[in-house]
């Protein structure tokens, strides 16, 4: 009914339990960061894992979503949920334009085009007045949920973030297991054959791209509210690389992989932050190890050991 197998149901239950229990043990702001990146990585995984499209420009949607949420809540004084949805709408609109351009080419060209287009967005953000250039948009208020519930307390906003993440996670699961999702997988396996069966593959790819960029925008908007800041870091291409790393490390095309990857990468960055550029080196090494010896990722390997799809 839900599209989850029994093992996956256990996995989801475990994940929800961890999300509920974790803030009593770990610092909630750290957990919120993990959840935002987990949603971002799940959105990215929708493309690479189920359509086989490697987007190297997802920072554009994450970052623009973050800027728009931050700007609107700061200057228009709108409520928190509207700001997050506006971030998602921004991601979707930008995804529609960039995706429409990028799906003209396939494979590695697609990756290069998304990278270049995202770089254009980066330069736009660097110069546009509303982003605050190098300073970014600072002191963004968290606002009130539905105009009623103040979100200043970390624990209150934590539940909002947890809800946004779970909603996004379930939406992606729903998409992947819908008839639409089956067509996406057919395109991943053999695009010419899907075309010959009468599917307009470009339309499917574009819709998937827009959905993915919308969720990336929502993730970015949520992150802007949590941290009260939207900066160039969020649109920089290294952010695109980071989301690739999270998904690859967790397991491409797995349900729980991107979440696990986001947790590991964010934790690693937190603990290694004092060592400066060693973070970059470590990330690079993980990339190389994953590609050379660990292509299924953490969750993929666990799944293979237990002979289940996770």
């Amino acid at each position, binding site marked *: 009914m839900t599209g989850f197998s029994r093992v996956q149901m256990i996995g989801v239950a475990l994940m929800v339990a961890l999300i509920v229990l974790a803030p009593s043990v770990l610092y909630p702001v750290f957990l919120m960061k993990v959840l935002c990146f987990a949603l971002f990585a799940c959105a990215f995984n929708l493309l690479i894992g189920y359509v086989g499209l490697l987007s190297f420009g997802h920072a554009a949607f994450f970052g623009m979503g973050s800027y728009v949420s931050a700007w609107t809540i700061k200057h228009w004084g709108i409520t928190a949920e509207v700001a997050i949805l506006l971030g998602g709408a921004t991601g979707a609109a930008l995804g529609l334009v960039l995706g429409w351009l990028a799906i003209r080419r396939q494979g590695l060209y697609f990756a290069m085009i998304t990278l270049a287009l995202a770089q254009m967005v980066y330069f736009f953000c660097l110069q546009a007045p509303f982003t605050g250039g190098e300073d970014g948009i600072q002191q963004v208020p968290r606002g009130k949920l539905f105009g009623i519930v103040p979100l200043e307390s970390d624990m209150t906003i934590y539940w909002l973030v947890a809800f946004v993440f779970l909603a996004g996670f379930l939406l992606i699961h729903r998409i992947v297991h819908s008839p639409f999702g089956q067509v996406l997988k057919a395109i991943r396996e053999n695009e010419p054959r899907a075309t010959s069966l009468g599917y307009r593959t470009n339309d499917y790819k574009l819709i998937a791209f827009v959905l993915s960029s919308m969720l990336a925008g929502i993730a970015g908007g949520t992150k802007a509210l949590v941290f009260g800041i939207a900066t160039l870091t969020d649109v920089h291409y290294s952010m695109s690389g980071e989301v690739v790393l999270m998904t690859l490390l967790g397991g491409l095309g797995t349900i729980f992989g991107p979440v696990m990857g986001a947790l590991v990468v964010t934790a690693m960055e937190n603990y290694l932050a004092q060592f400066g*550029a060693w973070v970059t080196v470590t990330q690079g090494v993980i990339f190389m190890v994953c590609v050379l010896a660990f292509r299924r990722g953490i969750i993929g390997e666990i799944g293979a050991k237990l002979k289940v799809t996770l």
Partner: protein
Amino acid sequence: MFTILGIPGPLLFGQLLLGVINGAFYAMLSLGLAVIFGMLNIINFAHGALFMMGAFVSWMLLNYLGIGYFPSLILSPLIVGVFGLVLEKTIISRLYKLDHVYGLLLTFGLALVIEGLFRNAYGSSGMPYRIPDALQGATNLGFMFLPNYRGWVVLVAIVVCLATWAIIEKTFLGARLRAATENAPLVQAFGVDVPRLITLTYAGGIALAAFAGVLAAPIYSVNPNMGSSFINTVFAVVVIGGMGSIMGSIVTGFGLGVIEGLTKVFYPQASATVIFLVMVIVLLAMPRGLFGKAV
């Protein structure tokens, strides 16, 4: 002072020169990417990092061993080329049976490692590299002053690009290379050592990037980020030109440099984005790129 289209001549020609110089680097880097892609079917994301490494090696040769600019113009590409050779043999050659996407991911990781290591060792502020004495000063061309070093860079870049073109299109080695790009198993059946050819191609492409790095060292300061700031633009150049033709890469590289330079004069706000805009237009009008073949 004379003006062209309301722009003072020296300003126009000055920016045009900067554009040609950037174009020279775009051409050399996209050329290497195209050659490597043709043979190995991977996008070498580490190209920018190896370009930076070329500049750093020449800086190290000068500061640690006292070896000057001209010898390091040969030595640095050799050293980095050998590094590329080792990389191909030990790591990259493991990927040929996998989806091409993995090559991109691996070399991206490689770029992070190289840049991170250099940033750890040298910080990110950048170090100056003095223009060699023989190329100091400037020449009065009548309509503008041409700094000698910049003239030299343009000249050398053109020569190197044409030489690469000639090697690939006009020599026996190039003919084998092109044949192996077309159909590797068949060429191998004729007794050509294709794996060695692949290794040499990768090392050669890397050496070209390192050579560009040495040329760049006196112009831009030597710093760990110099490659990554170039490489994203170079990817757009590659998309615009298509990777099918060597001459195409050269022409596209220089042409886009000039366009970027002109934009700096007439509409400076767009100078950072103009190449990406050209890419969008090319994608709309001719998705395969200006000189591209069918994928």
